[in-house]
């Protein structure tokens, strides 16, 4: 994944971006806003880019990006075929080579039914640099296995705590096999291309040797398709969002599949409000709660069938 962010930029801009690309491992986000300074988030720090492409903490020295440059960048990212990314633009983000995600915002164009048709006049871009953290789930493995059997597990945290990173590594370790259990066939319903970071149908992140990915398909539909076509032992989804998806997971579990999922939330109370108290607790034998403390993310507690089995507080 080295220097893959440089490939996002057209040839005439690469000289400017090459210094940033050289320290890709440390970069978390690149924020581009029309007629506003370029902001880079590196190692938890907010920095600007000066005219030579060097990082600076002085906003006054910052290089501004124009609307024309954003248009040019979008064209390049879309391989000069913006129409081919119609669906992604509708959702507001594109996954690119290297597994990075480019979020876009501007002016939404709505259909008659109030749904977003596309986003035009794109004036804001957020390049989220993908970081694969192999071994992130090492500490979680003993919690999600019981006597060599994988338990249905849900990872819950507020945004930015690393639940997707954790799920990705969990999928990889479950798929490849680990000291707690044998390798299993995993199917990933990756609606937002966040787990596998698939680009052109090919996962850009290591999700394991026994993993099949259905990319960019609504989770409910994807789970049923995968269940029928790939006969998985485990189904993994990111960001469980509504009761329809929970129902699809329940059906998958009824077919004998194990479930690995994540959900936004601050605790089980949040989930109880969203899905109904006890609804998810019936399905998930393990609920892992994450938190951010002193700038780093960690497991706060693991609940086993509603009971706290391991609290790190």
């Amino acid at each position, binding site marked *: 994944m080295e220097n893959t962010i440089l490939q996002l930029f*057209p040839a005439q801009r690469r000289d400017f971006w090459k210094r940033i690309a050289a320290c890709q491992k440390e970069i978390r986000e690149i924020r581009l806003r029309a007629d506003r300074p370029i902001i880079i988030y590196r190692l938890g720090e907010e920095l600007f880019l000066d005219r030579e492409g060097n990082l600076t903490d002085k906003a006054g020295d910052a290089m501004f990006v124009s609307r024309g440059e954003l248009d040019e960048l979008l*064209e390049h990212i*879309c*391989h*000069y*075929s*913006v*129409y081919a990314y*119609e669906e992604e633009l509708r959702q507001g983000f594109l996954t690119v080579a290297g597994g990075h995600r480019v979020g876009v915002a501007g002016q939404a164009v709505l259909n008659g039914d109030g749904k977003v048709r596309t986003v035009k006049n794109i004036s804001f871009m957020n390049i989220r640099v993908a970081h694969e953290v192999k071994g992130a789930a090492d500490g979680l493995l003993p919690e999600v296995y019981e006597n060599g059997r994988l338990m249905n597990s849900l990872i819950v945290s507020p945004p930015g705590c690393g639940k997707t990173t954790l799920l990705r590594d969990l999928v990889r370790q479950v798929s490849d096999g680990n000291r707690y259990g044998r390798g299993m066939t995993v199917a990933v319903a990756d609606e937002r291309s966040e787990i596998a970071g698939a680009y052109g149908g090919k996962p850009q992140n290591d999700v394991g040797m026994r993993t099949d990915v259905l990319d960019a398909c609504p989770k409910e539909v994807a789970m049923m398709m995968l269940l029928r076509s790939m006969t998985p032992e485990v189904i993994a989804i990111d960001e469980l969002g509504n009761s329809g998806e929970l129902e699809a997971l329940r059906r998958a579990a009824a077919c004998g599949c194990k479930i690995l999922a994540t959900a936004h939330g601050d605790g089980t109370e949040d989930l109880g409000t969203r899905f109904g108290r006890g609804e998810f607790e019936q399905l998930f034998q393990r609920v892992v709660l994450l938190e951010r403390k002193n700038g780093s993310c960690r497991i706060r507690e693991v609940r086993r069938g509603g009971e706290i089995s391991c609290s790190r507080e």
Partner: protein
Amino acid sequence: MLKGIACCMIIAGSLGMGVWYKNEFTGRIRAIRMLRTILILLEGEIRYGRDTLSECCGHIAIRLKGECQTAFEQVAERMRQNGGESFERIFRSSVEPALKGLPLKQEDIEDFFRFVGTYGFADSSLQLRLLEQSREQLEARAEELSAGNGERCRMAVSLGAMGGFLIILVLW
């Protein structure tokens, strides 16, 4: 005897020139129809696969022959390598030399390239419409050329033969 041989050579030469012109006229129509086929293939790839233009080039290359096949493969490969060049630049620099080898006029080539000159449509139907425009333009030209082609071919061969006779008469 010598004069007779010279006359035959002049007639054969001028007649050959007429036939060459006839082939050029027919060859241009054939080449325009090939460009039209390429555009139809591109439309199909966009309509059913929602592929990017570079992916389309890679897919349709296998259905082409000769230099055109190589050129389209080259476009797909250069876009895959992502050297930062625009699609228009890559497409023109790879495909134009291949088209120059065909009996096409510059206006035919420009009509074909029209769809790469404008891009950035967020809607596939607009992108398809642009391809259709290029195709319709080429179809109209091929039709126009075909309409008078029979006469033009006969004229070329006749003029070639008559030119030969004229030269013989002048030199006799």
